């Protein structure tokens, strides 16, 4: 029985430091509370002959001081936890993007090169990895305790999660959001490998189309070029080349074109209308499933 958890990421060490600090602070408060209670229970037990004197009547100074002390301690803990949280969820720009689709009851993973796997995620170490995640049915949650991270995976939305793993190894992957009968079996493993080994792994086995190639297929099949032009050059609809990451002017504001925005444009085009173009884009909801959508978006992202 092992009572420790591997710290496979830098964040893991930082989260552990926070949890340790919280534990020590809690133990100190517990010692104070239990200590005072025990002391009073013995000292002031009925029948104990000790002189109790006059009980203090004025209380507000004591009240104010412990309230302020509590507030100050809480504020410190808030800052610590919040600072780390912000860093946990701000991915660096150069992260390797891997796509994850949750489905009752399995994790489907696709690497940018088109390699697919189920309930296993191979990643290189010492390199930021960003997961782009969505669900085909209910809410799932991608959790790797050894990395101290988790995030819900929602149907109809993209959520991302990033980490840099430092230690090669095999780690538990859990679904932590109740997702139906097979919830407890929706588990898998993350295999963290040396970068060279990861490259070798990518090369081995049956290699299908790359993500971008598959996405180009989807683009052609659904006739996107009819409006957006070959290679997304533009035309009736807005140009797609160079769109990813740019600021887009909408009829009611400006938005950064990230995966979630691209997804909205395809599935619910009426929701965020691009300024200067007629409202003729049809919704593709129900026509493209999540896996193909991921590929289509990867293709659009590749258009420079």
């Amino acid at each position: 029985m092992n009572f420790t958890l591997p710290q496979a990421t830098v964040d893991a060490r930082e989260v552990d430091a926070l949890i340790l600090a919280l534990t020590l602070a809690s133990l100190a408060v517990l010692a104070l509370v239990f200590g005072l209670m025990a002391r009073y229970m013995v000292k002031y037990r009925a029948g104990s002959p000790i002189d109790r004197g006059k009980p203090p009547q004025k209380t507000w100074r004591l009240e104010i001081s412990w309230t302020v002390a509590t507030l100050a301690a809480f504020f410190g803990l808030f800052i610590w936890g919040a600072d780390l949280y912000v860093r946990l969820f701000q991915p660096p720009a150069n992260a390797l993007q891997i796509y994850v689709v949750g489905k009752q009851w399995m994790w489907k993973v696709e690497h940018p090169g088109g390699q697919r796997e189920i309930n296993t995620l191979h990643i290189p170490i010492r390199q930021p990895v960003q997961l782009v995640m969505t669900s085909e049915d209910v809410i799932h949650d991608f959790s790797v305790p050894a990395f101290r991270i988790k995030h819900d995976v929602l149907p109809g939305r993209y959520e991302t999660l990033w980490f840099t793993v430092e230690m090669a190894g095999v780690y538990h992957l859990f679904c932590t959001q109740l997702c139906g009968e097979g919830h407890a079996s929706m588990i898998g493993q993350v295999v963290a490998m040396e970068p060279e080994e990861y490259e070798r792994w990518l090369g081995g086995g049956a290699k299908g189309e790359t993500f971008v190639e598959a996405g180009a297929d989807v683009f052609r099949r659904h006739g996107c070029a009819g409006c957006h032009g070959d290679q997304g050059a533009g035309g009736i609809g807005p140009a797609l080349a160079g769109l990813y990451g740019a600021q887009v002017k909408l009829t009611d504001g400006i938005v950064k074109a990230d995966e979630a925005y691209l997804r909205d444009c395809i599935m619910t085009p009426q929701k965020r209308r691009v300024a200067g173009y007629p409202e003729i884009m049809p919704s593709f909801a129900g026509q493209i499933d999540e896996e193909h959508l991921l590929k289509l978006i990867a293709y659009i992202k590749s258009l420079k």
Partner: protein
Amino acid sequence: MKGAAVTVGIAAPQESYLTDGTTLKSWLFTTDHKRISLLYLATITFFFFIGGFAAALIRYNLILPEGVLDSPETYNKLFSLHGVVMVWFFLVPAVPVTLGNFLVPLMLGARDLAFPRLNLLSWYLFVLAGLVALYALVAGGVDTGWTFYTPLSSFYSNGHVVATVVAIFIAGFSSIATGLNFIISIHKLRAPGMTFYRMPVFLWSLYATSVILVLATPVLAMTLLLLAFERIFRIGVFDPAIGGDPLLFQHLFWFYSHPAVYVMILPGFGVISEIIPAFSSKQLFGYKFVVWASIAIAVISFLVWGHHMFVAGTSLYSALVFSILSYMVAVPSAIKVFNWIGTMHKGWIRFDAPMLYAIGFIGLFTIGGLTGLFVAALAADVHLTQTYFVVAHFHYVMVGGMVSAFFAGLHFWWPKITGRLYPEIWGRVAALIIFIGFNLTFAPQFLLGYLGMPRRYHSYAAEFQVLNVLSSAGATILAVGYLLPLAYLGWSLFYGRRAAANPWRATGLEWTTPSPPPTENFSTTPVVTGPPYQYPCTEAVRNE
């Protein structure tokens, strides 16, 4: 001190609310708040043991990594049943509808609640809700967990979601009626001289609780109605496949369900604030601070629902705001703990069963509160949420805290309610067994959660087994601890010694009337001339 209980006044009242009519009809159609309180006590005891039985099966299943029960579906239905029954049919109503119903008029110096018939209707609604819930259970159960997250509950679940939701919907009406009854009674029925600042803290805490119930329950009711509509008529509210938003449900659900945690715990605070002064023979330390802490909790509790969603896909900024607000709501709770301990300072402390339960409450609630800080700290929550750490945390608050407080109150007012004394030694033994059993059950789960074991898993990785077995062993002790009071309190109904009007030498109007009280509560309307908790401190007790 034990002798005091019988020597002060042995004269058992000839006429009491218990002897005023003995037919079934006189109970089922009563409008007497005291009788309704007993009807409720029987009902929630029944649900407590149903929910407890499910908990026992859950812990039994987790002895082996691969699970003992035959299917994951059965397991999912068990923990859903456990959650639904315990939350809506025990924890939320328990203290208000039993102790609250019995004591509000007595503490106010009133003849009854403001609306006695509405009170009876609340009980019938509650029973109806319970029957519908039991129907859902017998017909096949529900497997979504007590939180009913969409779209699992709206489209993918095979369980009886609609029936369960209807049961909770009906129970909500019962809550609202009870809350309104308390608010209006407290405003209108206080005895002459009883200003708001002369009210016992128990009444203040029920007042704050009732405000939450009246404001938050309708939101839950509407949310569940929308869920039922989505499931039956396929209207897209929460499911993105038909144009809904899966996070909307969580926002609406937690807008009720976080304040509901305080509905469970605030009345417990009230009970403890009565017991600690009584058994310390000392006035409550910082009365006004304790009172306003209750009000502060009621207000801030509406602003913290988002802390259930730090990894659910809400924005960074909302997470920051909800984190700091969650720390704010913990401050008033901390104030109360300090004040209870301050009350014991220079007191004349007796360790009767209610006091032991109350001290157990302070210990367990403090652990529950402190571990709440872990999950309010954003980055720590990312690792700990949805694991057994959270399971342990909220069981410390809701079971270690609220159930201990309920037991403390039940033992404290048992002589008043029944006119009988229970065997004191068994009360103390049970309090001790519950405290030990509880810690053995749930303390290992903190570690289990840190190590990453997800909650709601029917089977688990073998490395988690030792801690799970430890927890299940603790649960066995806890079960014995919970069965004991059922036995000796039941025994006392028939064989217990008669109780005097004020067996604990406590203050408060409820102790000035005989035990058990007559139907009309007081022979003459009491007049209040001073603040509560005027304990003569030590002298009277010292000379025993």
